[in-house]
C-alpha cells in the first residue's frame, strides 16, 4: 500500500498532468481553428503551409516531437525550459489534430447560409463571427473533446525532458519501492477520474446546447 506522503506526491504529478494538458488544450483549440481557416482559404501558400504542418505533426510521435523542440531548438538559438517546451510540444501536436476537426466542420457548413449573410451586407469576418463560428464550434465539440482525452493520455511523453507528470511520478515511486503495481493503479484511477470529469462536463454542455439549439 502507498504511504500518505507518497499519495500526496503522486497528486503533485497529477497537478502537472492537468496543468500541461489544460494549457495545451487552451492554446491548441484556437490554434487548430486558425490552421483550419488557413487551410480553407483561397490563397494557395497558406493552404499548403497548413496542410504540410498538419501532416508533419500528426505523423511525428509526441516523444520525438518533444525531444525535437527541447533538444533541437537550442541549435537554432531557442533554448526553452522543460515546462514551456512541454506545453508547446503538446499544443503544436493537439493543434494539428484539432485543425482537421475544425476543417471538417467548416467544409460541412452549408454554403447557402454564408452566401445569404454576405448578401445581407455582412463582411466576411462578421459573417464568420455571427453565423459560421457559433455553429461549427457546436458541431465540433464532441470530436474536440475526444481529442482532449487523447491529448491527456499522450501527455506522459513530456516526461522525457524532465517534466514530472503523473506517470513519471508513478515510475519514480516504483523505482524505490520495487513494486510498480500500487503507484500505477493509483495513477490509473486518477487518470480515470480526470477523464470522467472532462467527459461528463462535455456531455452536460452538449445536452444544454441541444436543448437550446435543437440537434447539433
Amino acid at each position, binding site marked *: 500500500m502507498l504511504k500518505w506522503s507518497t499519495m500526496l506526491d503522486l497528486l503533485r504529478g497529477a497537478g502537472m498532468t492537468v496543468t500541461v494538458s489544460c494549457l495545451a488544450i487552451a492554446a491548441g483549440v484556437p490554434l487548430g481553428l486558425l490552421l483550419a481557416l488557413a487551410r480553407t482559404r483561397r490563397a494557395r501558400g497558406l493552404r499548403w503551409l497548413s496542410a504540410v504542418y498538419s501532416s508533419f505533426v500528426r505523423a511525428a510521435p509526441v516523444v*520525438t516531437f518533444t525531444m525535437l523542440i527541447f*533538444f533541437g531548438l537550442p541549435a537554432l538559438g531557442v533554448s526553452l525550459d522543460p515546462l514551456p517546451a512541454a506545453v508547446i510540444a503538446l499544443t503544436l501536436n493537439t493543434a494539428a489534430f484539432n485543425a482537421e476537426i475544425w476543417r471538417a466542420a467548416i467544409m460541412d457548413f452549408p454554403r447557402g447560409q454564408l452566401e445569404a449573410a454576405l448578401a445581407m451586407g455582412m463582411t466576411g469576418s462578421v459573417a464568420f463571427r455571427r453565423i459560421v463560428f457559433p455553429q461549427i464550434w457546436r458541431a465540433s465539440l464532441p470530436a474536440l473533446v475526444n481529442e482532449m482525452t487523447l491529448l491527456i*493520455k499522450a501527455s506522459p511523453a513530456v516526461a522525457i*525532458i524532465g517534466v514530472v507528470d503523473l506517470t513519471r511520478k508513478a515510475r519514480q515511486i516504483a*523505482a*524505490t519501492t520495487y513494486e510498480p503495481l500500487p503507484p500505477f493503479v493509483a495513477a490509473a484511477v486518477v487518470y480515470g477520474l480526470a477523464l470522467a470529469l472532462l467527459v461528463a462536463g462535455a456531455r452536460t454542455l452538449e445536452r444544454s446546447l441541444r436543448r437550446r439549439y435543437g440537434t447539433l
Partner: protein
Amino acid sequence: MTAPLSTRRSLALGPRMSLASFAVALLMLPAWPSSASAASLEDIKKRGYMIVATEDDYPPFEFVVDGKPMGYDHELLSILRKSAGFEVRQEILPWQGILPGVASGKYDVALSAAVITDERVKSLDFTVPISESTMAYVKRKGDASIKSLKDLSGKTLGVQQGGASFQVLPELEVELKKTGGKLGNVVQYGAFSEAYQDLVNRRLDAVIHNIVSLSTLVSEKPDVFEFGQRVGRKSYAAWAVQKNNKSLVDFLNAFLAQQKSNGTYKQLQSKWLRITFDDLPNQPLLPGDRPIK
C-alpha cells in the same frame, strides 16, 4: 509469445511513439549545427552557471522520494554546489533523455552513474569512476534452475533499453557458448522496476543490472529476489560530458579526486551504496580495465 508483448511494454514512453522514430530523433540530434557544441569550463564561468542532468529512478545512485532527490550522486552534487564557485543548475529526467541532452549541449554534465562502455566513449568523455559497476544477474528467490552463470543458457533475461545491461549481452553470449549454451530471449525495458516485476510474474528468469543496484534491490526485498553472479568484465560508472570537453572533465576530476582523498567518497559509498570500493582507478577505464584510446 513473449516478444510482441514485451516490445509493447518496453516502450513505456507514451502511446504516440514508436521505437524507430525515437531512434531517428536520437540520430538527428548530433547532426544539428555546431552551435549546440558543449560549453567549456571557460564558457561556464563566463555565463555563471553549469547545467547538470541527473536521473530519477536509479537507486541507490539517483532517485526521488516524495519529490526530494536522494542518493549517492545527488549528495556528491550537493557538495559540488558548495565548492564549484559558480551556480550549478540541475535537471532531473529519465535516462533516455540524458545522453541526447548532453550530446546536444543542453546539459553540460550527465551527473549520473553512467557505465563506461565502448559504445559510449565514441560520443562522450568520462570522468574518473565514481563506482564499480560490473553487471550481474538477479533471480527469483529459491529458483533452483539457476545455480550459476552457465544456467542462464536459454533463459529469458530482462535488460534496460540502451543500458549497459543490454551492451553486456554479447559478452554473456560468448561465456555461455563456452559451456555449450546459448543466449535465450531478451526483453528490453524502459525502467528496471518493470523488469523486476516481470521477474516476480515469471515472465523473466533473470534481470541483468549493475551489482550496486542489484544488491540494493536484494537488501530491500530479501524474500523475493536472490543475487546471482557477475556477468561480463569488471566495469565502472562515471559522470559524462560531451566528447573533447577536456576543461570540464579536468574540473570534475579535480573535484572527485578531492572527495576521494578527504574520505567523502568512502563515507558516501558506505552510506548509499552499502559497499565501498577502495581501488577505483584514477582514470576512466573500459570494461576489463582497458584504457580508453
